[in-house]
C-alpha cells in the first residue's frame, strides 16, 4: 500500500517571510565578501581624505627675501624686519646670490650708499614679483610715503567654496552609482550564470520579491554609506550640510534606486560576468568623466552640455551640491530630481520587460 499523502499535515509555522530571507541573503553575501566591504565603505573615505589633504587651503605665505650683509645696519633693513608678510635673512653677497638662484629666497635687497635700494629678482617667478611689491611697499612707507586713498581689508574664507566641499558630494554621488550598478548587476548576473535564477523560479518564490530584496539591501546599505562619507567630510573637513536633511535623504534614496534600476537593466540579459562588466564600464565611464565628480561639468564645451546634464550622475551630483553647499529649496533641485526619477522609471520598466531568468 502506498501511504496516502493527502492526509499528511504540512507544517505551515516556523517559516520566515521570503522577502526577509532573501534580503538577509543579500546582506550575508555582501559582508562575507571583504573586498566588497572595502570598496563600498573604506575606499571613498580614503579618497576623500587624500583629496582633502592634497587640496587643502593654505594660509597666505610670507615672502622670503635676503638682505646683503654689507648693508645690515641700513634703516631699510630695520623697516623690512618689522613689516608683516616678509621673512628677512641677512646673507653675504655670494650666499644671497646662491639663495636667489636656488629659490630659497624670492628677492635680494641691496641698499646703496646713495639711499636708493636695488632689488634683484627673477621676473619670471610669481613669488618674486609678489615679494618685489610687498618689499617695495614696506620700503616706501618707511621712507614716508602716505596712501592717498584709505582702504580697509576684510579677510574671508568661506566654508562651502573649498575644493573638499566640492568633492565630497561628488564622491557621494559616485559611490551611489558604483554600489547601485555593481552591487546589483554582478549579483544578478552571477546568479544567472550559476543557474541559480533558474532554480529559484522553479519554486513558488515571487519574482518581484526576489528583485525587491536587492532594493531593500541597497537602501539599507545606503544609510551606512551616506552616513560614513558625509560624517567623515563634516567632522574632518567641516564640509557644510546647509540643506534640509529630508531633502538630502530623498535625493539619496531616489539616486540609489535610479542607479539600482540601471544596474538591473544592465544585468537583465548577460549570461557572463565579463559581458556584464563590459556593459557596466561602458555605462559608468562617461559619467565618471563628464558628471562633475572631481571637477565641474561646466568645464566641458557648451555643445556637450545637454548630454552631460541628462546623465543621471550629473543630476545626482548637482542636487547633492545644491542641498549640502547651498541649502537649496525644493524648486532649485526639482529639475535634477525629475531627471533622476525619469531614469529610475525608464530603467526599471525596461529591466522588468527584458529580464531573463534562465
Amino acid at each position, binding site marked *: 500500500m502506498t501511504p496516502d499523502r493527502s492526509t499528511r499535515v504540512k507544517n505551515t509555522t516556523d517559516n520566515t517571510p521570503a522577502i526577509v530571507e532573501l534580503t538577509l541573503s543579500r546582506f550575508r553575501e555582501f559582508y562575507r565578501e571583504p573586498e566588497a566591504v572595502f570598496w563600498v565603505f573604506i575606499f571613498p573615505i580614503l579618497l576623500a581624505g587624500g583629496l582633502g589633504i592634497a587640496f587643502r587651503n593654505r594660509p597666505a605665505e610670507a615672502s622670503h627675501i635676503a638682505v646683503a650683509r654689507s648693508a645690515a645696519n641700513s634703516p631699510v633693513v630695520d623697516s623690512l624686519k618689522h613689516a608683516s608678510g616678509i621673512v628677512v635673512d641677512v646673507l653675504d653677497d655670494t650666499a644671497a646670490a646662491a639663495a636667489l638662484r636656488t629659490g630659497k629666497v624670492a628677492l635680494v635687497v641691496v641698499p646703496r650708499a646713495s639711499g636708493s635700494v636695488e632689488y634683484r629678482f627673477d621676473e619670471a617667478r610669481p613669488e618674486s614679483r609678489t615679494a618685489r611689491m610687498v618689499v617695495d611697499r614696506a620700503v616706501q612707507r618707511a621712507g614716508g610715503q602716505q596712501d592717498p586713498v584709505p582702504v580697509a581689508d576684510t579677510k574671508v574664507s568661506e566654508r562651502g567654496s573649498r575644493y573638499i566641499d566640492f568633492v565630497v558630494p561628488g564622491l557621494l554621488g559616485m559611490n551611489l552609482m558604483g554600489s547601485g550598478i555593481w552591487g546589483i548587476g554582478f549579483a544578478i548576473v552571477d546568479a544567472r550564470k550559476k*543557474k541559480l535564477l533558474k*532554480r529559484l523560479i522553479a*519554486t513558488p518564490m515571487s519574482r518581484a520579491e526576489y528583485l525587491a530584496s536587492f532594493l531593500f539591501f541597497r537602501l539599507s546599505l545606503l544609510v551606512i554609506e551616506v552616513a560614513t562619507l558625509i560624517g567623515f567630510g563634516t567632522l574632518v573637513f567641516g564640509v557644510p550640510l546647509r540643506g534640509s536633511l529630508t531633502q538630502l535623504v530623498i535625493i539619496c534614496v531616489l539616486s540609489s534606486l535610479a542607479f539600482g534600476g540601471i544596474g538591473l537593466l544592465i544585468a537583465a540579459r548577460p549570461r557572463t560576468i565579463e559581458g556584464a562588466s563590459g556593459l557596466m564600464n561602458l555605462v559608468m565611464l562617461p559619467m565618471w568623466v563628464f558628471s562633475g565628480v572631481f571637477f565641474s561639468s561646466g568645464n566641458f564645451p557648451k555643445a556637450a552640455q545637454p548630454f552631460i546634464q541628462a546623465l543621471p550622475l550629473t543630476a545626482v551630483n548637482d542636487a547633492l551640491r545644491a542641498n549640502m553647499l547651498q541649502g537649496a529649496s525644493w524648486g532649485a533641485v526639482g529639475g535634477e530630481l525629475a531627471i533622476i526619477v525619469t531614469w529610475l522609471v525608464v530603467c526599471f520598466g525596461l529591466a522588468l520587460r527584458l529580464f531573463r531568468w534562465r
Partner: protein
Amino acid sequence: MPASSTAPLALAVRGLRKAYADVVAVDALDLEVRSGECFGLLGPNGAGKTTTIEICEGLLNPDAGTVEVLGMQWARDGNALRSRLGIQLQETLLSEKLTVAESVKLFRSFYPAGRSVDEVVGLVQLDEKRGSRVGTLSGGQKQRLAVACALVGDPDLLFLDEPTTGLDPQSRRQLWDIIDRFRSEGGTTVLTTHYMDEAERLCDRVAIVDHGRVISLGTPRELIASLGAGHVIEFGVDGSREIDEAALLALAGVKSAHRAGGSWTLQVRAAHETIPVLLQTLETHGMPLTELRTHSPTLEDVFVTLTGRSLRDDA
C-alpha cells in the same frame, strides 16, 4: 513496492515536441507516471532527458504536446504547481557564501507549507555541516544540499536530473537512500540518469529514451526479460580472421550477437549451453580467445539491443 497500476497519474505527457535551432531535442514523446512511483528516464547524453524533465518542471515551453502534472497544467496552475514540486537541476550552484542551514531556510521561505530546516538537513545527513558555507562542501554534499532544497517544500512530486552524475560510490548510495525514503513515504519521483545500475536499483519503471523518443518502457525486470536472454557472454579473439555473425547466431542458445570494437557480445539463453560450443567453434577456426566474461543481462544490454550503441558512447 511498485505503485499500483490504478493509482492516479502524477505526470502525463503526450505528444511532446521541442526543437532548438539546430536539433530536435524531444520528438513525439509520451510518458505516464503513476502516483507513488519512482520513474526513471534512462538514456545517453543528448537523448532529450533534460529537455523533457525541464518541460515537466515548467521551466521550458514545449513546441507541441500536452503536459499534465498532478492533474494540473502549467499555463493555468503554475503557482499552485510549483509549491507541490521538488526540483533538483543538473547544474545549479547555490550561493557559496551562505551556510547549509541558511540555504535550506531560504528555500523553505518560498513555500507556504513544508518541512522544518532541521528535519530536511537531517534527512540528507548534513547535520554536521549545518553551519558550513556551501563553498566548502564536497560534490556529494552539495548534491545532497540541492536535494534538501528540493525536499524542504514537502513536495508530492520530486524531479531529479542526473542526481548522482560525477559522484563517488558512497555519495551515490547516500542519495539513493534519500530517494528510497521519499518513495517509502508515498512521494512520486521522476529522475533522469545514464547509469543503468541506478535505474535498476531505484526505479519501479524505466523509459529508455533515445533521440528524443521513448524507445522502450517497463519495469527494469520486464525490459531485461524482453531480451529473452538468460545470460550475456562477452568475448574477444586474437588475430586478423573475421568471425561470421551468422556462424555465431547459429550456435546453440544464441539470441543475438553484437560487435563493438574487437569484442563480441552474445545474448544467450543459458551460458553453460553456449560457452562449450563457442569455444569449440573458435578452436576449429584457430582463433585464440583473449577474454571471456558472462553476466546477467542489464538495462545496458537492453539499450545496446535497441540501438546498437552503448549507453555511455558520447557519440
